[in-house]
């Protein structure tokens, strides 16, 4: 009985350590990544349902313009492109998380709308790491 309890405590200790390391790792990663580069020369890519629907060079945006992206099932997102960055200003979904993400300027975080399956990323022209791969088909 006593041995069992000790084993139990060891297991709990290992699991706790695992969680703490995972937490620290993520926070450290977030801290390091903070320094985003300049968006000049980057490409804005817009995906829906894993298909690239539009590519816009960041430098081509001289003044703010708003574009409406609609889904086949009636949902929509209105995306604002401006020299300061890209943001979603209006969405048909109930949670509005994509609007609250705010404006993005670099590759550190994509704009994501889960209900409308829309992903907007900013990345290097050659590095299309965000392109859909074979797994998703």
């Amino acid at each position: 009985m006593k041995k069992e309890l000790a084993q139990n405590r060891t297991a709990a200790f290992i699991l706790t350590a695992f969680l703490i390391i995972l937490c620290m790792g993520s926070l450290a990663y977030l801290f390091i990544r903070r320094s985003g580069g300049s968006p000049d020369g980057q490409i804005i890519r817009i995906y829906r349902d894993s298909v690239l629907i539009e590519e816009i060079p960041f430098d081509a945006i001289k003044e703010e313009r708003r574009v409406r992206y609609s889904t086949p099932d009636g949902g929509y997102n209105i995306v604002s492109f401006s020299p300061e960055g890209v943001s979603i200003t209006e969405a048909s979904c109930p949670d509005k998380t994509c609007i609250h993400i705010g404006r993005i300027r670099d590759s550190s975080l994509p704009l994501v709308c889960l209900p409308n399956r829309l992903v907007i990323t900013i990345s290097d022209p050659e590095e299309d790491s965000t392109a859909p791969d074979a797994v998703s088909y």
Partner: protein
Amino acid sequence: MQKKNSKKINTGLLTELALLTALALAVYGAESALPALLPIPGLRLGLSNIITLAVLRRNGARSAALVLTARILLAALLFGQPVSLLYSLSGGFLCLLSEILIDHILRKNYLFLTSAFGGLIHNLGQLLAARLIMGSPAVWLYLPYLIPAGILTGLFVGLCAHFLLKLLPSRPADSRPQKTFKS
């Protein structure tokens, strides 16, 4: 005979599980009315997991799976969009599986650890679903936010489940054969 009986759900257990499912659904509805704390897609407190965890402890894995399935399907019907069903299913069931596993390893001690792992795996499951639905690896960039968030919300859920288990009547309606009366 006894073995056959233990596989059946008796009326007491059925009623208790139905009541807890309704409770989970109410909590889920109340939570979806709250504004999100941080603008991270998929980030929620996951309060309805309190019920799942409590049922897992009280009535076992099979009952917890029943309550979880009923809750997810009803919640999608009442509050959600069709897409959110996929996120809930992958998150919910991976969460339950990990909780069953961790609860078994820890021999039903350290409830907070079980729920912390549940929260973590829940978020990983949802992100995996998002990865498959969106088809863009860019969603992995949310992983470093969702790992600590899942662990923290999991700890909170574990705390709540601990108190819920204390508040619920001490003798659970279980699947043990009860006295049967011949008519």
